[in-house]
């Protein structure tokens, strides 16, 4: 396990460097002078010079890259040029809201997908299977920027049951969590169905039923446990997609997380903050993918010896 762990950690290092480099290059993709774009044409030359110095844009690109790189381990992601506060501090304040939203939507997705996927597999080819298949396809096809407003239309405008926006762990969380979790629930439902059907075909399940075990127990105690390993992997890997989806969901519901901060930073042309948000979301994804791989290697010894 130690050998696997070390190898996996070593493979992560170039990915982290690559991600940092891509994010660093983002600001250099700006068409024209970043300082002109950020301050507008009416800014006086002294202001422009000051911002150029602040963002290190007056130095050669390699020197800029070196100081950007050396700042990251110290948590120095630059200064937001609108609020004049450190970028990391601005982002850190928004993390709890995004974590709350992401964790709730993943929980909702699992709670919906697990029973629905099992039901579809156990009733293969019957009405329940077709219905859950259609629901999954519909949910996969509906983008969150459409689902969100539709849920608001139904539950806030028509029925008046839930608030349009707001922040908190109670009622304001319901619509954003459902919006963000629906696509993932659909993906997991299809996956649970497919992996469970694969397991149900195997001999050990037939043997368990032949020994007199009721079909339901054979599914719950034997097949489902084995079917869940790939589902756990998918769950971990889709964390990144949830974070990316939170950008749109948080914008729809004015949820005060990193996603909304990113859009606010884009609107304000606060590029150091844009870079910081993209970097933090991408590095969180790398970290969760690493944790998922390690967890799977612990769960399934075959992975460690591949």
């Amino acid at each position, binding site marked *: 396990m130690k050998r696997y762990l070390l190898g996996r950690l070593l493979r992560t290092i170039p990915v982290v460097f690559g991600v940092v480099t891509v994010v660093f290059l983002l600001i250099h993709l700006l068409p024209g002078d970043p300082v002109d774009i950020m301050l507008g044409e009416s800014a006086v030359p002294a202001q422009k010079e000051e911002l150029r110095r602040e963002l290190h844009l007056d130095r050669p690109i390699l020197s800029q890259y070196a100081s950007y790189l050396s700042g990251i381990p110290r948590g120095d992601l630059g200064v937001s040029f609108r609020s004049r506060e450190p970028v990391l501090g601005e982002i850190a304040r928004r993390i709890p809201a995004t974590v709350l939203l992401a964790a709730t939507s993943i929980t909702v997705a699992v709670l919906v997908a697990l029973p629905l996927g099992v039901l579809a597999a156990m009733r293969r080819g019957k009405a329940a299977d077709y219905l859950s298949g259609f629901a999954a396809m519909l949910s996969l096809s509906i983008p969150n920027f459409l689902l969100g407003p539709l849920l608001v239309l139904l539950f806030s405008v028509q029925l008046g049951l839930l608030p349009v926006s707001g922040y908190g762990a109670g009622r304001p969380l319901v619509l954003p969590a459902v919006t963000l979790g629906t696509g993932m629930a659909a993906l997991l439902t299809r996956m649970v169905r497919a992996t469970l059907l694969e397991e149900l075909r195997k001999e050990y399940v037939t043997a368990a039923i032949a020994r007199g075990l009721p079909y339901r127990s054979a599914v719950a105690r034997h097949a489902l446990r084995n079917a869940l390993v790939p589902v756990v992997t998918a769950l971990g890997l889709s964390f990144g997609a949830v974070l990316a989806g939170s950008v749109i969901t948080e914008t729809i519901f004015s949820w005060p997380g990193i996603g909304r901060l990113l859009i606010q930073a884009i609107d304000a042309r606060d590029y150091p903050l844009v870079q910081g948000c993209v970097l933090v*979301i991408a590095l969180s994804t790398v970290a969760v993918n690493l944790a998922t791989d390690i967890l799977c290697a612990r769960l399934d010894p075959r992975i460690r010896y591949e």
Partner: protein
Amino acid sequence: MNEHSGFLVLIRRTARHRGAAVGMVLLALFLLAAVFAPVIAPCDPLAQNLDEGLSGPSVSHWLGQDKFGRDVLSRLIYGARLSLAVGLGTVGISLLIGLAAGSLAGFLGGGVDRIFTGACDILLAFPGILLAIGIAAVRGPSFGNVLFALSVLGWVGYARVIRAQVLSVKTREFVESARAVGSSPARLLLRHILPNAISPILVEATFGIARAIVAEAGLSFLGLGVAPPAASWGSMIGEGRHFLFIAPHLVTAPGAAILLTVMAFNFLGDGLRDALDVRQ
């Protein structure tokens, strides 16, 4: 069997899939609307009539009017052009890069493959449309920038599929025989390996068009897609959501268009996958 009849067999097998058949019909309608937009659209999609802003469906404007009094149906029909152009454009560019990178990495192996795998790992660390949002944010809203932003990450999926296919096909006997009779590496790759490695890409590309359409609409929803006043389904929803209480049709009409189009591509992708699956 020649390639032409092989393609016809594939179409016939795909059409046997009920969902795929419905998807094909929907997509044909969507294509016709996009191609003949100037003929079909009842009004100019950019013509404003501020006095009638936010009006609901009527005889002269079947799907109502937006806040500037522009005809929603006409904007929807013209929006189909944009969605289709972004979907096909992104997949076309991504396929070209993906095919070149994936086949070279799989065929040459060694250092080229290691660099390829490293680049893929880095790009895949950016989840969903995050990198596209970042790129579109700094480049500004325009059709070209949307294509660029979506293709930067779009090629990776195709490249990985094609690499895996090339790795598996290049060890088969017919490739070995071609190599033994002196085929050049380029001929081996283009004439013998790629034609036999391409079918999973068809399925992936079908889903890819749906993904690109959703991604463009998502960027436009955030104000990072194609520059206004051009009609984009995503920006129509983005503008319409501010009037949900008084004019819900501004969200539901473009929403239905996106949903139907994406479902059609997803059903078609499922059908193609089943048709190409030899176990079926």
